[in-house]
């Protein structure tokens, strides 16, 4: 397993996992907070840079389980800071996925993060939206903090044209290699899928 030092580059993921300081404590929850308290923690920690925090507790089933969710908007500059603070003060976050939408003037990325997993009905889903103006489309990579974010970040690059800064592997994952550069399937503007690119399979050979 130690051979990775000899073969560098490419998908040196092993290397990445090892470089990022591992310690068992990192996975432990540091502070028990309800969604409302967690929302307060975010507001206190990041002040003006997080907005429109909505914390919800929705009952599920008959046994008093609550589905805890927090939605918020945030400035993209604090993304890394936010993840780092979650690791240090709250709980090592599980990044479910990064989704993205095209909102006209801007592209919005939603980071769906779970904390407080590992016990019954305690998990809280935090969805953070980051608005990125289309003329300055970038976000920081969090691969060094959560190595599992890689595929999600690569996908945002190819599907939405977001420049993920410092991503260590920026190749395409989903799209074919001969897919035209500068076309992003999830965009709804002129860089989206052009009508002539759409193939109507149902009409071939009819």
């Amino acid at each position, binding site marked *: 397993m130690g051979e990775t030092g000899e073969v560098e580059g490419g998908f040196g993921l092993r290397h990445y996992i090892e470089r990022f300081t591992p310690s068992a404590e990192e996975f432990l929850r540091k502070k028990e907070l309800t969604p409302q308290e967690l929302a307060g923690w975010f507001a206190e920690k990041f002040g003006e840079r997080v907005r429109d925090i909505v914390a919800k507790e929705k009952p599920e089933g008959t046994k008093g389980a609550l589905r805890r969710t927090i939605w918020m908007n945030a400035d993209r500059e604090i993304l890394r800071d936010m993840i780092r603070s979650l690791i240090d003060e709250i709980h090592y976050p599980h990044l479910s996925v990064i989704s993205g939408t095209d909102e006209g003037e801007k592209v919005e990325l939603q980071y769906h993060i779970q904390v407080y997993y590992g016990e019954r009905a305690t998990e809280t889903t935090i969805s953070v939206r980051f608005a990125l103006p289309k003329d300055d489309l970038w976000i920081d990579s969090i691969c060094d903090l959560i190595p599992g974010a890689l595929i999600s970040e690569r996908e945002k690059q190819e599907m939405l044209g977001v420049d993920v800064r410092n991503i260590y592997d920026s190749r395409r994952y989903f799209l*074919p290699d001969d897919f035209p550069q500068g076309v992003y*399937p999830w965009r709804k503007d002129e860089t989206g899928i052009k009508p002539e690119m759409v*193939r109507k*399979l149902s009409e071939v*050979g009819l």
Partner: protein
Amino acid sequence: MARLNKSFDKALWVFHVNSGSCNGCDIEIVAALTPRYDVERFGIKLVGSPRHADVMLITGPVTKKLSEKVKRVYDQMADPKAVIVVGTCGCTGGTFYESYTLDGPVDNVIPVDVYVPGCAARPEAIIQGVVKAWEKLEKLRGDSV
């Protein structure tokens, strides 16, 4: 084609290619091999190399990334050979009737002999498809003699 002898009916070796399908048909193909359906009774055998195969069972609507590979696998198969498309999406595009990453349907990429529709195609339907392929091979034999 005069070389087509009767043994073809009784010993069809099948190579399975997934060209971007949803897995539904693929598991049904495997199901056809297992005890409930057991196609080996009819001499149908799944093989690991296209060189050994007589029939290509292809599922899925052929993604751009795979269309070259599908063609190559088809070329690697030794003559005489037949192609069976399993599943609606491979036959016509089906629910994926419109997309930017598909090169399908399959007959747009390689010549197809038998179509087995269904989403997913049932194992019985797949077996019937193989039987149709025999009929086709028989017809070829009739033409050439």
